[in-house]
């Protein structure tokens, strides 16, 4: 009886104890020895016509991503035709000499994949991901649309209307509008200022001849690479590439030179865009920054990770975690082949926009003002190393990463060196980068939202704010406004 009671009490005592302190240990267990991420360099071969064939073989899953990247894109848009490279790439899959647009979509999707095409800065692409048994037929489609697009007038009209409607939706979002406006104002009339997807007016100006000419000039084997990632070896990849792209003729004329013009260093007043009924304000900063080839590219990557990339960046710590002002804030050092864009952006309730502007400016200045503590910087370096490593995990992500290196003119073997180069960046390197490239005075500030709720407060710190109604915004002009010079 006693024994039973004692046993029962013992059980009870155990339950009470575990209910308040179930965890057996008050500190995290130790970390085991690391297993480093190992990345093999992709194999690069070149066909007789100059087409580079790049293979990253991965066994285990019977999938292959095939990606044809042309090393020219949005930067090649003529001045009055913003969005032409993107429209051209979109039209590739909308009809060829032998297949209609619906037939192309149906053929690709019957293989299990989705034939995607588009253009960005320094690149245009066609890609598909399929299972290995479908690869040969998928690649025939990639070659067909790349080499023999029909650019039918009816398809151009369809794509134009869809693009104009798509812009109407995108520009109704305060975040998107503020970022496009900030970039346009920061770069003025120079190449990287224009919107990649065009404007309603630039799309209306495009003619079939413009599309045909852009395709003829830029889509050529010596200006392209065919990337395979997945369950395929380099010999099979080369044979498939030869069969589908081997007879793609290399034009006699030399490749067109880069058309990129340098950003004019114009400092402009902050802009407020009045959007009636906007549920939040979009806050965006933009400024010209380094090219991908700059010697301080990796310090820039780490500086950006410290400032605004990842959940625990300084901007997210200050604006989201400490102050609860935004669901997420971020920055980017978007380093391209012939220059780059530094961007910072967030969405916040309208009345908080001035505070978000202030904290962003303070945090950008703080990176330049003092070196980061070693512990803080080591954590941020591991954060970006992890993010880079995760881009190697799927065939689509790795193909996209290789395509970016190609577009930027970087040796694809950089994949094997990137982690070491990030690891080597020091606090002094980061501070030096920020001092050289992030003067607060160079930033174009744009806030788009219900302006009545923030413009007066914004003017306390920035008396020269220019207020523009949404309906007057014209992204074709560096001054952003219709009627303005």
């Amino acid at each position, binding site marked *: 009886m006693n024994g039973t009671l004692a046993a029962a009490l013992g059980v009870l005592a155990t*339950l009470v104890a*575990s*209910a308040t*302190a*179930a*965890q*057996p*240990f*008050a*500190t*995290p267990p*130790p970390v*085991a020895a690391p*297993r*480093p*991420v190992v990345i093999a360099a992709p194999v690069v071969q070149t066909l007789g016509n100059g087409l580079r064939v790049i293979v990253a073989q991965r066994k*285990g*899953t*019977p*999938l292959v991503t095939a990606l044809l990247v042309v090393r020219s894109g949005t930067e090649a848009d003529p001045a009055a035709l913003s969005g032409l490279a993107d429209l051209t790439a979109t039209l590739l899959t909308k009809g060829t000499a032998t297949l209609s647009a*619906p*037939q192309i*979509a*149906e*053929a*690709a*999707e019957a*293989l*299990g*994949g*989705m034939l995607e095409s588009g253009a960005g800065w320094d690149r245009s692409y066609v890609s598909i991901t*399929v299972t*290995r048994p*479908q690869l040969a037929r998928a690649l025939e489609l990639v070659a067909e649309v790349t080499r023999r697009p029909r650019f039918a007038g009816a398809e151009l009209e369809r794509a134009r*209307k*869809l693009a104009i*409607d798509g812009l*109407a939706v995108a520009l*109704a979002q305060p975040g998107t509008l503020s970022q496009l406006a900030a970039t346009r104002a920061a770069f003025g009339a120079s190449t990287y200022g224009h919107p990649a997807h065009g404007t309603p007016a630039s799309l209306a100006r495009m003619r079939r001849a413009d599309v045909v000419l852009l395709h003829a000039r830029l889509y050529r084997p010596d200006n392209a690479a065919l990337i395979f990632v997945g369950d395929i070896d380099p010999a099979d990849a080369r044979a498939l590439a030869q069969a589908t792209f081997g007879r793609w003729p290399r034009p006699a004329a030399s490749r067109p030179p880069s058309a990129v013009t340098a950003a004019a260093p114009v400092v402009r007043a902050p802009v407020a865009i009045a959007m*009636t*009924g*906007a*549920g*939040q304000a*979009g806050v965006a900063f933009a400024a010209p920054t380094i090219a991908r080839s700059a010697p301080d590219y990796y310090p820039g990557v780490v500086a950006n990770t410290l400032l605004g990339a990842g959940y*625990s960046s300084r901007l997210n710590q200050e604006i989201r*975690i400490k*102050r*609860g*002002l935004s*669901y997420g804030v971020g920055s980017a050092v978007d380093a391209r082949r012939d220059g780059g864009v530094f961007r910072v952006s967030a969405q916040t*309730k309208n009345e908080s926009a001035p505070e978000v502007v202030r904290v962003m400016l303070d945090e950008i200045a703080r990176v330049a003002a003092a070196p980061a503590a070693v512990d803080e910087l080591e*954590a941020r370096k*591991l*954060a970006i190393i*992890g993010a880079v490593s995760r881009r*190697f*995990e799927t065939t*689509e992500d790795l193909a996209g990463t290789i395509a970016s290196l190609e577009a930027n003119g970087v040796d694809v073997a950089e994949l094997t060196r990137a982690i070491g180069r990030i690891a080597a960046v020091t606090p002094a390197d980061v501070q030096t980068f920020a001092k050289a490239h992030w003067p607060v005075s160079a930033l174009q500030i744009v806030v788009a939202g*219900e302006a009545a709720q923030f413009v007066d407060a914004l003017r306390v710190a920035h008396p020269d704010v220019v207020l523009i109604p949404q309906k007057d915004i014209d992204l074709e002009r560096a001054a952003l406004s219709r009627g303005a010079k």
Partner: protein
Amino acid sequence: MFARLLVALLLVAGGAVSAAPAAPPKLDVPPLEFRERVLGNGLRVVTLEDHASPTVSVQVWYDVGGKDDPAGRSGFAHLFEHLMFKSTRYLKPEQFDRMTEDVGGMNNASTGDDTTNYFEVVPSNHLERLLWAEAERLSNLNVDDAAFRSERSVVQEEYRERVLASPYGRLHEALARRSYTEHPYRRGVIGNIDELNAASLDDVRAFHRTYYRPDNAILIVTGDFDQKEVDAWIDRYFDPIPRPPMAIPRVTVVEPPRVRAAHFRETGPNVPLPAVAITWLAPSARSADAPALQVAAALLGNGESARMNQALVYRAQIAQSASFDVDLRVDNGLLIASAIAARRSTPATLARALRKEIDRLAQSPVPAAELAKVKTQLLTHALIERQTPLGKGMALGDAIVSLGDARRVNEELAQLQAVTAADVQRVLRTYVLDAPEVTIEYTQQAAAASGKDGTKP
């Protein structure tokens, strides 16, 4: 982050043509070779070894979601999810980020109508610490008032970003509210500003006590580990957590069958192009009809060649995008046909065209090649999703939560492949043609009303 609800609807979808390529070569998706066990305290554990990369994914799925929000506290389960990254007895606020992001990993979480999941990917040498940390926040959550208030503001900004600032956010938000009459699904997951403001720290403690317990959780570990080692760690950190004696409250409300069609008009202050959504009640994800509905949805909405895209966007050029989604849930889900207008077309025109495509699929012969196409798409999609430890774990978690059994992860694909054209037509007749629909038209509000906050559901 309440991501899942928003991704499906109103994306550009695809359509179908009759030209028939030869049937593609057959390829099977290799089964996920997982192990499953249940601890003495009721915690379900699923593990799957995969040494492709030196990383491991840890996921904990809780059987609680937006449908379990307390009365007057819409959005609470999702707010609570955010608070699980704050302090516990032995973890500082955001220490999860120190243990994941700061060592080269990542973490996130999402709240759906039925479930809440927390997931991390870390270098595999950090696995034991993550198991410790997940056991810790399951056992000893201890949020302070300052963190609670700050994170509630973040969630309110998330609401503004998704619902108020996004041109079609109000339409997404209206879907559940207009589609359900009784079931708590009608409140949606994101909630509203007022009910989030009403939440208190006491609510947080009560919710943790009620739902965050080992017999209401599933631990899923996938990736680079040693089976014996991981089993021992799981026993060490999770086995001591007591199973509380009280029962777990469950939603027992059953959505009554719809008796009549309904029509609603919603507006927003910044709607560049009108839109329409039509919904029907779907059976449970666990219904035998679920695979046929998924194939029907793929025929109508999956890819550029899908029927909705071909008919409305490509041929008629009345829509900027058109789609059909099957949002299957543990209880009644939704079938959702939706479109955003091209210039000059109206919601009524879009609704008619969407209906016409569904009727045609239900009543006219379905080409064999088209059926083969969507089956190949669904298989390929599964392979793409399952390339990473995170993706494998997600597939397992979905199978357990939505389908009730981890083994369904390996049966579901075979069931999709077995669907016939007659199955597709039968389920469309049952759940769409013979069922009342709810139509929601969405347009720009009149100028005088703009500027209103619009936070009331």
